[in-house]
């Protein structure tokens, strides 16, 4: 399945509801009431009050300058402004061998995302190793093992309650011995306001920094249904361990995942992948243009 059709099928419901709202807005001139409605449309996608206001101010300014009259022209301008916001990030390419750690709060879909990303790398003929660094949640390593089997990649795991830093240490040794291209490290879900759990994450990073010579990326997994708290998640995780990219999961529901605009704007962190289902192929690389076109 190609990128466009895949993204489209995942975002279809999203797009329909938003498109209807935008179309129904274009009834008269661009007055205050109109912009207020537009603001509500953006806010209802979880873009947030601040980012929505910024988008609208920019669109207002430019539409006046360009003397925009039709709904289609306005939509095009709105898209352009939104795409620019998403693209104003610091996006670095991966170089191999690469170790990617996946962090995030509980229940966002880290383990499932790793399974799907492993599959993607495998399809690109990379040798992949999974490291079951979530030794806390009941049966988390069983879940990742299932994914390893499904995708057909190796996995390093310990029993429940083990020290995650030790699992990571062994994982790196194994990857170095087998010359793996990609190491995907799962970590336990943790609420970012729990400093003891965040300190534990730092310990894992210390091991990685000491032992891993290749590229190291750190992805924060965010549930698309999350509201404004995602900003707090990004802020804290970024402060503790530095975040290179976002994996936005569960976009196959009715949630719009609009929080990524505020994330791009405030932190300059790009979205790397989007999860659109539970199947092994239900993952797409993020493309700002398609994402925005899918929303508006």
């Amino acid at each position, binding site marked *: 399945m190609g990128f466009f059709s895949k993204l489209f099928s995942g975002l279809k419901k999203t797009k329909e509801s938003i498109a209807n709202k935008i179309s129904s807005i274009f009834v008269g001139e661009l007055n205050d009431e109109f912009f207020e409605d537009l603001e509500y449309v953006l806010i209802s996608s979880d873009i947030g009050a601040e980012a929505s206001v910024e988008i609208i101010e920019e669109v207002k300014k430019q539409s006046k300058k360009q003397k925009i009259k039709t709904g289609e022209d306005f939509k095009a301008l709105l898209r352009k402004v939104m795409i620019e916001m998403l693209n104003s990030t610091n996006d670095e390419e991966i170089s191999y061998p690469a170790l990617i750690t996946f962090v995030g709060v509980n229940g966002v879909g880290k383990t499932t995302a790793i399974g799907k990303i492993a599959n993607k790398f495998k399809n690109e003929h990379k040798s992949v190793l999974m490291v079951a660094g979530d030794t806390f949640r009941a049966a988390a390593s069983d879940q990742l093992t299932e994914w390893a089997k499904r995708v057909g990649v190796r996995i390093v795991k310990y029993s429940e309650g083990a020290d995650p830093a030790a699992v990571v240490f062994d994982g790196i040794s194994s990857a170095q011995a087998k010359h793996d291209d990609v190491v995907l490290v799962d970590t336990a879900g943790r609420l970012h306001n729990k400093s003891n759990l965040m300190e534990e994450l730092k310990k894992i990073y210390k091991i990685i920094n000491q032992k891993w010579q290749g590229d190291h990326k750190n992805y924060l997994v965010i549930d698309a249904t999350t509201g404004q*708290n995602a900003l707090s998640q990004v802020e804290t995780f970024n402060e503790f361990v530095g975040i290179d990219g976002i994996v936005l999961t569960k976009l196959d529901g009715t949630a719009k995942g609009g929080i990524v605009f505020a994330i791009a704007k405030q932190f300059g962190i790009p979205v790397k992948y989007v999860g659109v289902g539970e199947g092994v192929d239900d993952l797409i690389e993020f493309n700002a243009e398609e994402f925005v076109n899918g929303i508006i």
Partner: protein
Amino acid sequence: MALFGTLSEKLSHVFSKLTKRGVLTELEIKNAMREIRIALLEADVNFLVVKDLVSKISEKCSGERVLKSLTPGQQVIKIVNEELTALMGSTNSKLTIASKPPTIILMCGLQGAGKTTMCGKLAKMLKKQGKKPLLVACDIYRPAAINQLKVVGKSVDVEVYDEGTSKPEKTAVNALKYAEKKTYDVVIIDTAGRLHINEELMDELKNIKKAVKPTEILLTVDAMTGQDAVTVAETFNKELDITGVILTKLDGDTRGGAALSIKAVTGKPIKFCGVGEKMDDIEPFYPDRMASRILDMGDVLTLIEKAQANVTEEEAKKLEKKIRENSFTFEDYLEQFDQMKKLGNISDILNMIPGAGKFKFNANMIDEKQIARNKAIIQSMTPYERRNPDVIKGSQKKRIAAGSGTSIQEVNALIKQFYQSKELMKQMSSGKGRFRMPF
């Protein structure tokens, strides 16, 4: 959000000029409403709910209470807090226990909301309450989900029933038979996380519901959910007619506006919340605390207390009017008791009536227990009796005493006290007594 500052900070800025003048203009109300709107949106309250709330709050603020008030900023916050608490339901709602065991609890929700963990927490809580719960594994889709429930079950020492990946509906029915045989009195059914728009999986839930007829159908929702919470809750409620909601991950720093949206859109109570990683980390849900959290106002109580002091002043004026008109009833008396709890002494209220400063009531009126008994007595009167105390005769007194768990003597004492108070007030207002009111 630190970026926006707390609502109280913003409002106090909006009202900073105002406190000096003491009058709200339409523009100032509009500005305040904008701040409230943003604060609620940043807390993830659904925008439609926000729209509705703000118009209600705005209406109340435009009323004379605020305009007359001395500190309108505080009163606005009070009104906002009241509206939020009212919307969320004023008391916490308990788990329904079936009259004939077993009580069947069906858990449902999106993926990653925390159903399986919550199943364990509920089981542990019920066990502590002396129940004998059984956990049932009906999530046959997520890899290792059954295993997760087994580990959770083991950690709380509760048996887990499973039939591998056979049909959840069948497993649930068999589990029920098993529970009856083994005299389990609560059956908690864990189900697969599912998107509310996945018809096939929603049908599966409906089939389970039909087959086992649950006492409770609890929707588990992540407290960090944004605008979509409304769609999710609405769909689950429409399809399954849920009986309540469990809010998880409240130990995070989310403001949790989703709680408000869910309540507004489904009308179903939030029964519990998950507040940590341990199996003991489950709490009953308190709507008023949630209101303060959504508004992100740590100092809200102080402010509201201050605001309430102002209202009392208004109420004192109302009381003064009633005294003048001699229309003081048991209903007013009841209100006095409520206020006494806050203020400590009725003389404080009377102190606000010009010229009545030195007036003192009976000391036993500020005894907490006595207040509670007196309140119970008044509450056992019919509304008609409260407004027309003269109709309370022997048989009514007997009924009131029985209803309030007091004695006829106590009822008599209260009625006597009431008439004495009323007589004193009458004297005060007519100027016949020692106290002359300057109006």
